[in-house]
């Protein structure tokens, strides 16, 4: 009986450790990534990057190429016409 108890405890501990350093480790890494992406600091960082992108856009003479400009213009006109219909 006691040998069965020792073996059970040993196997349970070993299983737990192996589980932790394999699946548990992956879970930890995912948790860390998710908590970073949802943190207030990360949101601030994204806002800063958007602001920076907008500033760059204002400073450039040609921010978008002619083809894209034409496409966006047509798209906006299309939207406008549908809204006013």
């Amino acid at each position, binding site marked *: 009986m006691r040998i069965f108890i020792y073996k059970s405890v040993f196997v349970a501990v070993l299983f737990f450790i192996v589980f932790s350093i394999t699946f548990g480790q992956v879970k*930890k890494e995912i948790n860390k990534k998710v908590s*970073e992406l949802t943190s207030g600091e990360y949101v601030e960082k994204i806002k*800063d990057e958007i602001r920076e992108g907008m500033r760059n856009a204002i400073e450039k003479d040609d921010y978008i190429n002619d083809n894209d400009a034409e496409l966006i213009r047509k798209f906006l006109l299309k939207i406008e016409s549908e809204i006013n219909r």
Partner: protein
Amino acid sequence: MTMFKRNSCVYLVFLGILITGLLVYPDYGFNIDEKFHRANGFYWLKFLANFFKIDSLYELSHLKLLSTSSYSQFPIDIHNKYGIIFDVPAALLEILLKLEEPIKQYQIRHLMLFIYFFVGLIFFYKLLLNRFTNIYISLLGVIFFFLIPRIFGDSFQNYKDTVFITFLIISIYYYFISQDNFNYKNIALFALFSSLATSTRIFGILLPLSFILFYFLEILCNKKDIKKYKKVIFYLILYFLFLYIQMPVLWENTIQKINEFFTELSTYGSELVYFNGDFYSTTDLPYSYLFIWIVITTPVLQLALFFIGLGINFKNLYINLIKIDKTKKSVSYDFWNNLLEKKDFYIFINFIIIFLAISFLDFKLYNSWRLVYFLNFFIIYIAVLAINEIYKKIKNNFKIFNFLGIVLILLIFFNIYRLNLYHPYQSFYFNELLTKNFKQKFEIDYTGLSGIEFLRNIPNLEEKKIKVAAISWYPIWRMVELLDERKKNNIQILFSEKIKEADYLYSNRIYNNNIKINDKRYRIPENFIKFKELIVDDIIIYEMYKRIK
């Protein structure tokens, strides 16, 4: 060697330790928790004075308690579930000695804490002597323990962890004594000290748990041991009774207070910790967290001996496991053959269980591995076991014995040199295994010990008004009262947006948000330059910035 000479050796070592402590205790900085513990002491002293109807003491402790209030501190009447075994005697001593000068009020606590630690060292010596029956090996163990820099540094200012280590050592000493002589007196003493350890830190619960575990292991091998149940129950009753007596917070609404205690546990401490060059949530640390901290902050000598000792323990466990079937039950137990082996196994298995539980069960850890510094006791015991085994093997070979003896002495002196190099910041020690770059990847002054040194080093503070702010996570205003009167009056602390107007900025490089993602809050304003920094062993303890425009 005569008994006299042997005893002289013991007295000499302990006298040396005591004198060292008495000489250096005023040098230490002030831990951010100290103000809270002072308030905790007066809060419970006031409660006890009221309970026992000592009016004069009630009045005095009430006034003292009012003087400790601070807006940035945990409200003491809510966060009042800390042990009182250090804080209340310290508060009483402050009243008895009529200490009015703030710096003296804290320095007396530093001295008192060291005395607690010193008592712990005496019991550590007694414990090792009980196991190894060799004065020199036991003394060596005491020296090893005393020379662990982080323990040495914390023995002057880290109230909770140092007091816990002391009571843990005393408890385990009485556990050993109770194994030699399983009588009611020894069990009662074990119950008393294990309850004192538990009231200081919840980790003390491991003492009754391991006591029960070992009783269970005994009856698994030897059914006759079941007769000891009366003494086991006696221990548990006394343990809970003592715990109840020394925690006044449990005297009313006991169940509710216990629930609150466990709920509040998760709210203490930082949310993030800087470890190995990255920020982690304190409840979701890497599994290697504790192992890495042990390896990088334990002196190489103690660390090497510890690993040898661990190897010996694993070997003994393996030998005992493979011969379980062959063992005659009436002669011995499965995991030990005699009391000495039982004591070694007790230390070994406790260390392994605690280490695995903390590493793999997502315990909340912060401030390096401060919360589990008590593991150093197990580490040194296992290291001493290694020394004992090595000694047994080489004692008849004088050449090897002398050679290893000289190596050991040289390494101890090297340890002392390193301890001195860090003074008074031994609490932030890293061993020689780390490169300069790697040392920058860990948090250092998490308790703000350098705050007072920064304030003292502000130029011209005696002559003129100076504005100061912190650019890291640190309540620097708590240290202002420790300055002398003139400097205190000349200092003004600025906060948030106003920090740009400060004359000097302080940084202990500790942050409560992830500065790697966005460091806006802790960015040094452009009108400041680095004016001074304190570097010890390639570690930046604190930085001082000066406004240039």
